């Protein structure tokens, strides 16, 4: 398994865990009457900051764990950290798809905001589009690396 593949697996696991945890928290908060609270925006803002910080830390932790696990499973004494021109090109392709998904999510959220939805709920749709974009990016990177789609 190459460095890029390990990184994509790590990003995917971290993305799923952190966004699942965030949306579970948001769901519970909204269920508990968060939207009627006057400090709702502050609470959501703090939650998003925790999501960003937690995501970075979890990603680093999972990257380390993935590297160790792959080394043990594949019995590679010296795992490769080579990233070459093809890897960068495949990564760019995956990132382009990710940006498209995030962009579409953002536009859809703005339409919903303009028509009927509460701003704080729209904000969750924007976060959701980031989640889908990030997870798609990791999956696409894995597909590109594994099946050599260039």
């Amino acid at each position: 398994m190459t460095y890029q593949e390990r990184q994509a697996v790590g990003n995917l696991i971290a993305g799923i865990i952190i966004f699942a945890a965030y949306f579970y928290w948001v769901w519970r908060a909204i269920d508990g009457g968060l939207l009627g609270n006057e400090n709702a925006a502050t609470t959501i803002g703090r939650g998003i900051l925790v999501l960003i910080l937690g995501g970075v830390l979890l990603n680093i932790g999972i990257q380390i764990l993935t590297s160790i696990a792959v080394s043990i499973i594949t019995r590679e004494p010296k795992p490769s950290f080579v990233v070459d021109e093809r890897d960068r090109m495949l990564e760019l392709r995956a990132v382009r798809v990710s940006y498209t998904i995030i962009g579409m999510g953002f536009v859809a959220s703005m339409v919903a905001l303009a028509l009927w939805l509460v701003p704080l709920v729209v904000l969750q749709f924007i976060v959701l589009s980031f989640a889908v974009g990030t997870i798609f990016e990791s999956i696409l990177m894995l597909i590109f690396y594994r099946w050599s789609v260039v």
Partner: protein
Amino acid sequence: MGKTKITINNIIRRLRFDADEMTQKELAERIGVTRQTVVAIEKAKYGPSLELAFLIAQVFDVPLEDVFQVSIDGTPITTPTETGN
């Protein structure tokens, strides 16, 4: 006017075989790429940059046109020299 179709083939596999059966991993390490990239180049699924192409030719000590053969609309415009054959 239709789109020009450029095809780039290579004989890296044969050059590796001639170079004491050099493995894809060895070649990858010598040119600073992953083994997957060497596989993709050999299968002509990925066209390397000019820098990488020259590095590959340098490893086998042959001219660039002996490693890569270019055809435009099915007409070969480069052919391997005696060294590459």
